[in-house]
């Protein structure tokens, strides 16, 4: 139940990719027939990705190496290209670490960055966002939904705000794409980051939607592929895989979303009912259909992960003890949790492989794992340990 960290490749996706390793291995820049067939496969994939986010034209999609590169290209590419208009960028406190680190770099290069707080459920404060806008603001970057706590942002309202103020609007949709409907036109989105692996496509591929007329500059110099915005020979098998994954996601999203919502809500309700001093992180309804994030008082997340792994259940945590930096998740701190609360958080990201039996199994195992660790913990009140 850790689909947020890595998803299996769909079998139809693998089928679609296979021939592009061995049979049609042409370079789309070549003029001969092998090159043409690679180019056709790539353009078909571009069309499929464009349809997933309701882009007007396939040409508005640029393929990259993944969500992190897409965020870099969008924010750095836009900021430097539009530097003459202003130097102010607005993000939120719960953006992906790539967005936060890009903005740190831009600050060193003379840009100013405002980070807007979120409420306890993780929804961005629209009033504060509006107040932060100055005549120097050139870009607002807000994630569509948070991969860790699942909270979905009021993207349409922010898009409207950006448009009214003639500010560029970038959306990191890595966690949301393929799980909930996205419409870049209706939502006034100028730039939208996508990742293939987060929708059962291969790792190492992503895309950036760039609305026609939105000016950005490349961050990689080279032979001018992808309309000059992303040089380097295209990863054809990967791109084909992402296209297939996008096509399948568009078809299956609604039914699969409804199915996962039922599982998600059963899991959340079951945990909160069965385990004392357990709490939901994030919003109850404005939430990705596959995400459940809960926290438990008196215990620490890494030991929970290990305890569950013994029973074959794989999950993530926002605890410092599971991070390379030994800092708890910035998202959990931003929704107002104390460090010790963040340490006790557990993230379930459900997917196609999960069934109701899996949820029932977690609800059977988890209370005992929590109970065992609480019996070990000096923080647990004595009356709770029998």
């Amino acid at each position, binding site marked *: 139940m850790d689909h947020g960290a890595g998803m299996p490749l769909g079998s139809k996706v693998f089928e679609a990719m296979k021939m592009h390793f061995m049979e049609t291995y042409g370079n789309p820049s070549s003029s001969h027939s092998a090159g043409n067939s690679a180019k056709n496969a790539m353009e078909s994939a571009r069309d499929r990705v464009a349809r997933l986010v309701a882009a007007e034209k396939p040409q508005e999609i640029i393929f990259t190496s993944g969500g992190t590169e897409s965020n870099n290209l969008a924010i750095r590419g836009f900021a430097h290209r539009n530097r003459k208009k202003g130097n102010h960028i607005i993000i939120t406190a719960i953006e992906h670490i790539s967005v936060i680190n890009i903005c740190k770099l831009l600050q060193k290069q003379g840009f100013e960055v405002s980070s807007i707080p979120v409420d306890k459920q993780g929804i961005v404060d629209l009033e504060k966002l509006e107040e932060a806008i100055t005549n120097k603001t050139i870009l607002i970057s807000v994630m569509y939904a948070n991969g860790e706590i699942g909270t979905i942002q009021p993207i349409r309202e922010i898009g409207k705000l950006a448009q009214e103020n003639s500010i560029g609007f970038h959306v990191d949709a890595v966690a949301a794409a393929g799980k909930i409907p996205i419409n870049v036109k209706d939502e006034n989105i100028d730039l939208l980051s996508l990742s293939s692996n987060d929708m059962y496509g291969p790792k190492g591929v992503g895309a950036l939607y760039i609305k026609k007329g939105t000016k950005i500059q490349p961050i990689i110099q080279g032979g001018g592929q992808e309309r000059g915005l992303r040089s380097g020979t295209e990863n054809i098998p990967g791109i084909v895989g992402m296209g297939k994954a996008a096509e399948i996601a568009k078809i299956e999203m609604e039914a699969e979303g409804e199915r996962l919502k039922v599982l998600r809500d059963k899991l959340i309700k079951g945990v909160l009912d069965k385990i004392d001093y357990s709490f939901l992180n994030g919003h109850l309804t404005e939430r990705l259909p596959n995400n459940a994030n809960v926290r438990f008082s008196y215990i*620490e997340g890494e030991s929970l992960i290990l305890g569950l792994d013994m029973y074959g259940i794989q999950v993530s945590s926002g605890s410092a003890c599971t991070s390379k930096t030994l800092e708890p998740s910035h998202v959990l701190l931003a929704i107002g949790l104390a*460090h*010790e609360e963040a340490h006790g958080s557990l993230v379930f990201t459900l997917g196609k492989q999960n069934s109701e039996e899996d949820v029932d199994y977690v609800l059977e195992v988890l209370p005992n794992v929590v109970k065992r660790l609480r019996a070990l913990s000096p923080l647990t009140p004595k009356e709770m340990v029998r």
Partner: protein
Amino acid sequence: MYSEKVMEHFMHPRNVGEISDADGVGTVGNPVCGDLMTMYIKVKDNKLEDIKFKTFGCGAAIATSSMTTELAMGKTLDEAMKITRADVAENLGGLPPIKMHCSNLAADALHEAIKDYKEKKEQTE
């Protein structure tokens, strides 16, 4: 990530609990950082007759607590004071480098408990 020995101690920790009439108690760590452990000791004839622990923390924190009680049980106070963090890690078949400092605090907690015992003893003498 962890050795088999660490996982074995994590799943089946030795000497868990509290000693209500402990001769010495030592607590180190901080829940804010993600690790907190308390060691309780009973001393007889200058030897550690019983040790119990309670730990809030990651797998390494729990396993090192368990291993420390096992290493120190029955030892003289001087011998127990010589048990180092490195000894604990070595007896567990090693720890990931990132865990060596933050979660390997159990030997310190034991030393604190022994100091607590000695201070209490001095006061009563």
